[in-house]
């Protein structure tokens, strides 16, 4: 079974596939990721692109489902272990390249993936929550169909998407959407320290 999977993966690796529109990760960056993290990392990005391609013409909920499922496959690891820092917001390339990350990294990767899939960013929020199960600070991605509707929670601990009312284990603390804040004052380059750092790393295509 394993051998079959490998065969399929390798065949995918050397297959020219065409995706309508801009690929999530361009070829040059993909090569760099391959050089840094290895061939399997590169394959993960192929699979990601495949996932995108599979839902690109579907509704928000399908896209949420696909993206949530894809990224929830990545293993959890603390920033201290991974980057030697107590708190670090990794770019989607670092997250998938390492195939590890903490709760913010899941949220970031899901957020940018959904934006790529043309889900309205104004519906997506980085939400600081308190997990009553783990009794520790946590972050989830929330999706608001309308500004006043009940949000859907995309969490890496509970892998399924639930409406907020069904997530009694989470206490919401603070919602945050960097793009919205940026949009509020276009002259200002700064809006949120962590978000600003992340934006910079994204521009530099940090892997």
């Amino acid at each position, binding site marked *: 079974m394993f051998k079959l999977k490998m065969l399929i993966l390798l065949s995918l690796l050397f297959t020219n596939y065409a995706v309508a529109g801009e690929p999530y990760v361009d070829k040059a960056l993909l090569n760099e990721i391959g050089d840094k993290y290895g061939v399997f990392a590169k394959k993960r990005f192929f699979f990601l692109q495949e996932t995108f391609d599979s839902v690109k013409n579907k509704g928000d909920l399908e896209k949420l489902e696909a993206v949530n499922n894809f990224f929830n496959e990545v293993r959890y690891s603390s920033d201290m272990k991974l980057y030697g820092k107590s708190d670090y917001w990794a770019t989607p390339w670092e997250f998938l390249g390492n195939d590890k990350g903490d709760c913010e990294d899941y949220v970031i990767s899901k957020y940018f993936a959904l934006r790529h899939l043309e889900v309205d960013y104004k519906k997506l929020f980085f939400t600081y929550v308190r997990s009553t199960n783990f009794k520790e600070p946590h972050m989830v991605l929330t999706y608001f169909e309308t*500004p006043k509707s009940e949000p859907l929670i995309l969490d890496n601990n509970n892998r399924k998407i639930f409406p907020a009312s069904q997530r009694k284990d989470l206490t919401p603390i*603070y919602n*945050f959407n960097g793009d*919205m804040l940026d949009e509020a*004052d276009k002259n*200002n380059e*700064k809006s949120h320290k962590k978000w600003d750092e992340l934006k910079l790393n994204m521009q530099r295509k940090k892997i």
Partner: protein
Amino acid sequence: MTLFKQIALMLSLFLLIILATVLILNFQNANKGVQDRLYEDAKNTATSLSLSLGTANGDLSMMSTMINANFDSGNYHHITLVDVEKKNLYDRVTESDIIAVPKWFMSLIELKAPIAHANVSAGWSQVGILSVQSDTTYAYKQLYAILIDLLISFTIIALIGLAALNLLLHAVLKPLKEVQKQAAAITRNEFIIQNKIPYTKELADVVLGMNNMVSKVKAMFDKGNEELKAHKELEYVDQDTQLRNRKYLIDRLPAYLKADASYEGGVNMLISLSGIIEANEKLGRQNVNKLFLKIADVLRDSTKNIKDSIVARINGTEFSLLLPNCSDSQAIELAKKIQQSCQEIINLAELDSKETFASIGLYEYKHSDNIAKLLSRSDNALTQAKFNHGNIHLEKAESAVEVMGKEAWKLLINKAIEKDRFSFVSWSVIDTKSKKLSHNVLSINLTLDKNSSYSYAQFMAPAIQSGLSSGIYKKIVDMLFRNSSMVLSVSTYALRLPHEYLENQETYKNLSELLRANAAMLPFKVIIELPDRLVRQDSKLIREYIELFRKYNISIGIFEFIGESDDYKYLQDLRPVYIKGESSYFLTQSDQSLSALRLITDTLGIALIAVGVADIETLEKLKNRDIHIIQGKVTEMLEI
């Protein structure tokens, strides 16, 4: 502009530009820091307030209270809360009332406080976006204080920097100053050798070059000095008796026979020794020479107490004694003593006193006589004496018909001094080579009223005799400096100051005060002429005068020069602009003597001026002797 000033200006400018740039950069940094701080404060408030607002569960009144509490406690320009559809829920805005900083500062510095935003939620629901902007009032105050601090610090740094720069430049350019001093001294014809050779190669080369040049010029001067001294011996001294000779007497006589001569007159005594041929046959030439030496000693001794007297051997057997200020009776008594002493010497030589004897002719001269008259009348007296019984004859001067008596003159002159009745007249001194006016010589007239006016030659002699000449000069010097408008044209004017006036005790003090108060404002250039007889003495008084004139940039000229000094170094110290001598002096000098004088004056940049040039013939003769600047009647005939 001096090199020091140029470098100082350049470096100062450079320093100030650097300091200004650093100041501007510092201020810009401070400005940016303040603006960042404004944003950070706003951002912190936005985040913390948005978290607080989340606890209000969407209750607008609660959220407004929270916003008010924050707004009132801090420095904010506005805090605004909009809902998810960007509809205004609540806002607070303040109007800045900046009075702590000047308006120009506010218009110069555009300070924008960035707006910080934060999402506000209530539980899982979105409430909206909170915007916070800090108030710039405090930032302006802070920036203004920073600017003032920066300006003070940079002014202090600039002052310290400029002072340090000044000291540094002085130290670095010190050798150049020395070089400049030496160059300036050369321009002033001073012979300064710089022993301290600068370390900088270029400057060292310049100093060595100048030292070399100065040494050569000094050597030329010394050579001229030595030659002139040697010629003076030949020109003016009788080689047998070491008395002065006829030429000396002729050259010196103009100083005794002039309107403003120091003495009204005196007696010229001619002593002739008869029977010298016989004496030579009897005693031999050497012994007769010894006899003349003894007679010369007698003559020297006899006149040593008579001030300004001249003893000269005018030919092989005749001597002349010019005795200024000597009365006829004193002169006759002196003549008898001299005759007696000569007789004793003749007797001692065992010569026949009937064959060998001294005849003495005396002529009582007046300062108004001319040289020819004095000599011919003296000769007459001697001829008479030779046939007289006692071999002494006195020829008195004609008693001139005096227009005014001594007392009348005294009264008139005193009145003129008191009432300011003197006026200046000027005579041109012309450089015939360049055909230009060299300068004007000032003289004075005494004008009592429309009908009564007296020239210098008329009133000066009685003034000297009455002891009023110093008073007159005090008056006219005062007029020259205080009332300079009397001399109309802007030119160079020379004023001759006589011996008597300069030696007067009060003169130096008066002149010092006059120059201090007026010298800087004179509309013309002044040359003060001093008598050679006085300046070559190198007295303390003369040094003080020279120092005084130099201090006020007044040039010095020398008059009555006949080159009788033992050393001409005084010319080097004095550095007059010109030397004036009688035209007869220049014409009778030997070529060697004149050339030696030229060597001295050329190395020192001194012009030679002939005075008393009366006709074109004399002028041409002077030109042939390379004397081109002239003073005298002939200048009226010249066109310039």
